[in-house]
């Protein structure tokens, strides 16, 4: 190492260290960004789409929309949902499936939303509750239908209320065409020649 290098290296090194010290000192006096969780529980609000745990909404009459078809159970990749049903005779003499127990294992769930997409009734959805830690493993297996509840009696298939439910109609139309017309008009300047293919 030549002498020149020795000293210039020394001084530029010291300068870089001082710059770093300057940065940290600046941060020392800036406002801290910490969110104080248990203290801010009142104000804390999760994003709507946050998936905390699966719930089955009940209306004021203690009725839910589940018909016990078991599609969610089949869609679940790792068996977190167990639907127990029984066959009941309705007044007009037909057999009808009815939900007995809807068991959901929160400790196994991977929040992939396949159950919700699979549900034809929109009977289940994710809520944003995140405070779920327990002491006992068995407490994580939850029964989602409330005791004494029954399926809501409705003739037409109810439109799902859940936000993440199946996409509505527009997908069926030859929509890709329409967007293809619209898109280049908007993005003319960027690069019209490049093919869209992958």
């Amino acid at each position, binding site marked *: 190492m030549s002498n020149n290098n020795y000293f210039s290296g020394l001084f530029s090194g010291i300068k870089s*260290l001082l710059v770093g010290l300057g940065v*940290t000192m600046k*941060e*020392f006096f*800036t406002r*801290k960004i910490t969110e*104080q969780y248990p203290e801010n529980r009142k104000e804390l609000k999760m994003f709507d789409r946050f998936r905390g745990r699966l719930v089955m909404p009940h209306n004021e009459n203690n009725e839910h929309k589940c018909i016990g078809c078991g599609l969610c159970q089949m869609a679940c990749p790792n068996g977190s949902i167990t639907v127990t049903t029984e066959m009941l005779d309705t007044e007009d003499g037909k057999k009808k499936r009815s939900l007995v127990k809807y068991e959901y294992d929160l400790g196994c769930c991977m929040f992939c939303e396949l159950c919700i997409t699979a549900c034809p009734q929109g009977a289940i959805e994710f809520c944003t509750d995140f405070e779920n830690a327990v002491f006992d493993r068995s407490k994580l297996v939850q029964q989602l239908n409330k005791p004494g509840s029954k399926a809501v009696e409705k003739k037409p298939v109810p439109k799902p209320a859940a936000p993440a439910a199946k996409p509505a109609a527009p997908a069926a139309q030859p929509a890709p065409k329409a967007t293809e017309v619209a898109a280049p008009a908007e993005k003319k300047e960027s690069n019209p020649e490049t093919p869209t293919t992958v």
Partner: protein
Amino acid sequence: MFDFTVVTNWIDALLLSFLPGWAATLVECVLVALAIITLYAVFAIILIYMERKICAFFQCRLGPNRVGKWGSIQVLADVLKMLTKEIIDMKNVDRLLHKMAPFLVIVASMLTFACLPWNKGAEVLDFNIGIFFFLAAGSIGVVGILLAGWSSNNKYALIGAMRSGAQIISYEVSIGLVMLTMIVLTGTMSFSEICQQQADLGWNIFRGHVPAVLAFIIYLIAGNAECNRGPFDMPEAESELTAGYHVEYSGMHFGFYYLAEYLNLFICAGIASTIFLGGWAPFHVPGLDGFNHVMDYIPGAVWMVGKTFFVVFLLMWIRWTFPRLRIDQLLALEWKYLMPMSLVLLVLMAICVSLGLTL
């Protein structure tokens, strides 16, 4: 300036009034030891809390704030926990050395802690070769670290200990030379005399101007390395050696290392403020008598502790800014930069003193 010898003399006289000479000395020794241990623990707790808070503030977060007001008794909880935690007895270790190592470290740390002059007349270990004693006592610690690494029968610990050995022994050279520089300036090795001199003539860092300022910087770097703190925390180097030499220690044995680390930091800062920043000597500006008079009202102990904490803050700032060095770079820094520089400084200081160029 309040002279603490008034208090000590009074206690001495009081004890002698009803005890024989030897018993009085014994009681005094015990009292002093108790005082030192208490101070040691108190400062350790303050420092750990301070570090956790300061580090948090550098990192745009809040740090401990749920245990007590602003998290102030957080460290007490840690101490309680550590005291009641199991100390694991391992097979395949060198039992005696393994158990002895943490005590060596803490004893070395306490011995050096006792060297600090707190106030005029409040020095525990004060004799004519104080600085020499300080250096000697301080180097016991490295034995503890080496023993810890060796006796643990763990490869990480061994590498950590070897690094630590190389590091501390190297940096002791710089520290010794820098202190020598200042001894040339003061002409004495006794801490009390150094402080007294600075109270009379002004702080050494001003008296020795250029060489003293440079020496101060070198001392800070080398001292930081002596304490095994970032960016020189190679022996522990968490990301490489998991926990370095104390990887196998649990419970209070680990607690000793933990405490010693912080206290060494404090001692390093304390010595820096004693030798360079005047120890308990108040800040005086020549000519401004009124100002100087006001400064004199602040007790010496406050000056001492205040200066020390200022230096501690500097060292923490450094620690929480820089990445860690590599062991060969660390040694290169010492042998290629710091040691030659401190040799030059020594000569420079000698010239300054002999030509009377000091202030």
